[in-house]
């Protein structure tokens, strides 16, 4: 009992998982404690595979997963203490919303099915739609209802795969508050997301996954700082590229300047805010007209890859 009490809620050790020779998760080790932890990474990074491994839905090809100190795979009794919400929105669409939540409660041996279901449906703000067929639910409504079914048995551990996707901004704020409140009550919540801003104000800790590997771990501010500190590449079209290049090289915020064959400048900077101020000032001083300024590597993948390298 003491071992179990001392164990982290989730302990993942050296877990790899491959499908027909394709590696989805590679040698990931992490622990998850109470509070909200985010698995962050671009699509295809292995977040869902790792979550499914933690839930015992698939076996790891290598490594071990323990939840509450017990093996996650082949241990159905554990599911009384876990709520898992899959990424895909499939539901038994011949049921109404309330029937689906009540069915989940019955399957979890909840003592007062009616009261627990009402509470869960109220939590996700779906009271008015609860008696409608799930066939008629929007994606965001299905998302919220599946969350209600996931937490109807009040589990101490919630595994939520992209819980905010498909929801509108107001619903997203509401669900974020719900998840924070659940965590504040002592639960362990592991959420996955591919949007950095989405986990801001939601997760206490972040595990960043890129290409199946754990690339970085830390709190949101540390990850965000790394993001802000990364060099940005900006394309600048102007009426005098060579003159402007010479002028920009005198600016502290600029790391390097290249001129391509078409005469476009490629300016690399680690301090985008300073560059934003300096660029028009330098151009004005040198009498150069700016025609176009465009970030070249601001895609999500490039952000994640930079953080992974860091």
């Amino acid at each position: 009992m003491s071992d179990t009490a001392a164990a982290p809620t989730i302990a993942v050790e050296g877990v790899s998982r491959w499908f027909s020779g394709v590696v989805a998760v590679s040698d990931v080790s992490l622990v998850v404690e109470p509070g909200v932890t985010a698995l962050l990474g671009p699509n295809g990074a292995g977040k869902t595979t790792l979550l499914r491994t933690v839930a015992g839905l698939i076996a790891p090809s290598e490594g071990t997963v323990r939840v509450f100190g017990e093996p996650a795979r082949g241990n159905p009794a554990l599911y009384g203490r876990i709520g898992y919400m899959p990424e895909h929105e499939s539901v038994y669409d011949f049921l109404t919303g309330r029937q689906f939540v009540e069915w989940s409660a019955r399957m979890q041996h909840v003592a007062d099915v009616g009261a627990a279901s009402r509470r869960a449906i109220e939590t996700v703000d779906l009271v008015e739609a609860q008696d409608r067929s799930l066939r008629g639910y929007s994606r965001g409504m299905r998302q919220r209802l599946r969350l209600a079914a996931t937490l109807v048995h009040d589990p101490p551990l919630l595994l939520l795969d992209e819980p905010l996707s498909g929801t509108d901004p107001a619903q997203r704020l509401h669900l974020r508050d719900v998840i924070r409140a659940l965590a504040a009550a002592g639960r362990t919540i592991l959420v996955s997301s591919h949007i950095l801003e989405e986990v801001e104000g939601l997760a206490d800790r972040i595990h960043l996954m890129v290409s199946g590997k754990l690339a970085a771990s830390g709190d949101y501010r540390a990850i965000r700082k790394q993001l802000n500190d990364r060099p940005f590449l900006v394309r600048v079209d102007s009426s005098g590229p060579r003159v402007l290049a010479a002028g920009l090289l005198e600016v502290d915020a600029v790391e390097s300047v290249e001129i391509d064959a078409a005469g476009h400048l490629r300016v690399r900077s680690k301090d985008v805010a300073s560059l934003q101020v300096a660029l028009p000032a330098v151009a004005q001083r040198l009498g150069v007209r700016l025609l176009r300024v465009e970030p070249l590597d601001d895609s999500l993948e490039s952000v994640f890859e930079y953080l992974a390298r860091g």
Partner: protein
Amino acid sequence: MGPVFTLTLRQLAGSRRAWLVLGLCGLPPLTGVLFHVAHSTTTPAKFADDVTATLVASAILPLVVLLVATAAFGNEVGDRTLVYLFMKPLARWRIVAPKLAAALVVGGIPVAVSGLVAVLVIEQGNPGGAVATGIGLFVGAAAYAAVFVWAGLATRHALVFGLVYVFVWEAALAAYLDGIRFLSIRRYALGVISALDDERLRSLDHPLASGTAFVGAGLVIVVFTVLAVRKLVRIDVP
């Protein structure tokens, strides 16, 4: 009735397959009516045996149970709702057993009743023979259901697997290889009918001994139920 049973019942009974089941199960009694309308020269007992052995046991029974039992898990795998069943604190047999029971209610009982009614209509009586037919068909349905429920979990091509078993193994190959009758659910079902009413199915070639039929059907039910439970424990849930 548990939540897995009721859910599966709604899944199966609410699908288009259920209408197909009803249509197929209407054929044997209808054949009985036609027998009397057409003033056939065959005796009612012989005609009832032919309908039972060829139309019901060889085609309608396996087809109906195939349609229903493969969907018991096959639908959950196909539309990715199996995760909701899997992530519940239930011993895996408590998921498989209600699924099997629901498949029997939606597929097995209609076929058994259909065969029973057909014999009553054709023979215009003989309740003993009719009940024996119903019980034998139900035992056969249980064995087929165990196999096809397992197949619905084990392969995404469960319908193809079932059709090959029924129409290649039990029908085509059995015509050449007499020993196949010991590994044929259809022959177990017919063997049970003969065992319960020795006046029925006398014209059947090489009937199985009653013990063989009961033990064979029982073994199939137990072995494939265990295999389904084992598969559910080890499955990679989509």
